[in-house]
């Protein structure tokens, strides 16, 4: 809290004091509140999926044959590797090696982009085989859930880009942002693992 | 530039007002079409070339000038920024509700134009378009109420020794807002004073609107020199 005397000696305006006090009042970054909430929301989607899978078991089993396990495995590997490079980036950052942290963050974004490209290719292959959103209930769940997931991948890529910019600029380096971005990216990875298990593997 | 042109925006308002009155008189009926008309009657109304031409002429003129009154409202919003809470969001609320009201009138205008466009359409469809027109014209008084309530509030909060508008503007806006409330329920009944051709929803609303605009023009005109002073929001 800036006392009036200090403020007077610094020549701050009332607005500047107010902004400084606000900044002090809100130190918590709070990504975990978002992650826990998001996991709950995704859990509700997965429960809905499980219920419909029970009700329309035959349709779901038949439709799942349209999915390619190869694509699924490749996507999973891309995200797992990206998580690994991100963990290495954080380790480098804690050790103060910001050059390595920058390269590893870029590599993470690269693997994230590989996932995006591969996922879009997979969708186009499926659509070209006549497996589209309105085909049946499974395809609705499949396209919608993977769509929501890829939206999260985009958010994660934006966060990683911001992290990269911060790592490059010595004035902005901030471990709190790095940890938030990493926690979010790992959540995206975790969600993909659940989606992969539910939609590709559980046949 | 001649000094008299400093207030072109405000001076355009009475001219636009007279054009509105003229366009209103061109419309084939002074009171709205009855909501109890059957589809065949409505189709016959728009099918009658004399009526259709007058609807089209009236609506084209309204279409040209439907946003014309914006000069008055923008000036009032500028004045709101010169009141003691002028740095706050009130002036923006006023602008937004004004835009909403104008959009709703524009929607009604287009529905009537489409209704008169193809008289050989199915009578049911003409009736639907005509209904949409009258409902969009009658019911969205909430935007006007929003304007009046926001302005009244700003006027009452203007507690300096030398207020921008007199207190009477605040009271006028409250009275106008109350007079416009029943019109929001104009779709409830098809007969009686609350129907869209009833005296509460139509005459009360239209006359309040006319008197309100004249009074607000006078208030804005009397306060016009305030606009030369900087606003508190700047």
């Amino acid at each position, binding site marked *: 809290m800036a006392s009036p005397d200090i403020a007077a000696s610094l020549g701050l305006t009332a*607005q500047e004091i107010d902004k400084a006090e606000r900044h002090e009042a*809100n130190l918590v970054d709070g990504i975990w509140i*978002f992650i826990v909430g998001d996991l709950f929301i995704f859990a509700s989607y997965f429960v809905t999926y499980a219920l*419909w899978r029970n009700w329309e078991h035959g349709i779901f089993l038949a439709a799942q044959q349209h999915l390619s396990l190869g694509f699924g495995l490749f996507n999973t590997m891309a995200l797992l590797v990206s998580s690994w490079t991100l963990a290495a980036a954080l380790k480098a950052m804690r050790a103060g090696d910001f050059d390595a942290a920058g390269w590893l963050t870029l590599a993470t974004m690269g693997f994230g982009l590989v996932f995006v490209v591969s996922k879009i290719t997979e969708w186009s292959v499926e659509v070209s085989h006549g497996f589209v*959103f309105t085909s049946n209930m499974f395809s609705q769940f499949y396209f919608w859930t993977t769509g929501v997931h890829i939206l999260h991948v985009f958010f994660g890529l934006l966060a990683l880009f911001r992290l990269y910019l911060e790592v490059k600029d010595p004035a902005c380096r901030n471990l709190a942002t790095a940890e938030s971005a990493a926690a979010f990216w790992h959540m995206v990875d975790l969600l993909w693992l659940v989606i992969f298990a539910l939609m590709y593997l559980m046949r | 530039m001649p000094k008299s042109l400093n207030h072109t925006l405000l001076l355009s308002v009475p001219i636009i007002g007279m054009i509105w009155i003229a366009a209103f008189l061109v419309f084939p009926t002074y009171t709205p079409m009855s909501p109890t008309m059957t589809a065949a009657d409505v189709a016959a109304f728009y099918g009658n070339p004399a009526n259709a031409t007058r609807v089209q002429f009236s609506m084209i003129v309204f279409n040209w000038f439907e946003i014309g009154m914006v000069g008055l409202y923008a000036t009032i919003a500028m004045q709101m920024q010169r009141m003691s*809470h002028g740095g706050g969001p009130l002036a923006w609320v006023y602008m937004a*509700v004004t835009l909403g009201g104008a959009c709703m009138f524009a929607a009604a205008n287009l529905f009537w134009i489409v209704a008169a466009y193809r008289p050989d359409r199915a009578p049911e469809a003409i009736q639907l378009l005509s209904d949409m027109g009258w409902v969009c014209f009658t019911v969205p008084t909430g*935007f006007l*109420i929003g304007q009046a309530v926001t302005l009244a509030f700003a006027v009452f*909060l203007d507690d300096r020794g030398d207020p921008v508008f007199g207190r009477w503007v605040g009271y006028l806006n409250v009275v106008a807002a109350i007079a416009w409330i029943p019109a929001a329920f104009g779709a409830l009944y098809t007969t009686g004073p609350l129907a869209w051709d009833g005296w509460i929803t139509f005459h009360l609303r239209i006359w309040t609107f006319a008197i309100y605009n004249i009074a607000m023009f006078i208030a804005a005109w009397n306060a016009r020199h305030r606009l030369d002073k900087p606003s508190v929001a700047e």
Partner: protein
Amino acid sequence: MTGAVPPIPSGWFAKMAWHLRHNPKADLWVAWFSIPIAYNIMGIVYFTITHMMPPPDATKNHAQIVEFFTKFGFEIRLGFGIMLVSLAFLVWANDLIGWLIMKMDIPHVKAWGYAYMIAMCGGGFTGAYMSAFTMSVASMRPDRDPAMLEVLYDLTYISFDGTMGFFLFGSLIWTYTILADKSRLFPKWFGYTCIWNFTTEFLVSPAVIVHSGPFSWNGTIAFWIDTVVYILWQIVYVFMLYYAVKRVDPPQDRFRLKRIARLTGQLTPHPA
């Protein structure tokens, strides 16, 4: 307007009158109160008066649509009348947030505030009030051609669910500004949760394609989960705005600064 400010009186109404008269943030507080009022009115109108929510089945046949509009006709028109009378509250809520954005500490902050106001007010007009007109017109004459009633029925629900872009961009702007704001007018964790709000607008898009199942406009995912998340978020949002209004600096307004000084006793009414 000189003279000392009287002390805050006791008693509910007297206190309210005092704040309206002397609180330098009176306009902000009234705008804040308009948020719970507006959303309660909307909730009551949608869920209990008009029966518009929870949404009826998209697979209704003509006879069922006619029955829906016949059964709830009067309530629908009454409810939307109430909503239309009170619509300014919603505009106040949107513009309060837009104004608060303008008080943040990011580059070109006024542009962000204007963008928010325009996006949210535009969305309100098409997303919330379009349904009022289509529903009122449909319920006025349930004896209309059923095919036309069906058009109005679809227009109602698709304009309600399908106005995605305005709200998407409005909440996107708010989210970005909260996260980028150096002055932390809103806490950062709240900024993260705002991501849910604009993601909802992506998630609801299948409702304009499919007629039944969890992704239709009355489905488990596109309606129920979205609505629950939205309402929970809305409750947090009202509290966050409360603290933001408390925290926000007085605008650069000489009258207001003077009154604050008078309140804290730093300015004598008549300096010698």
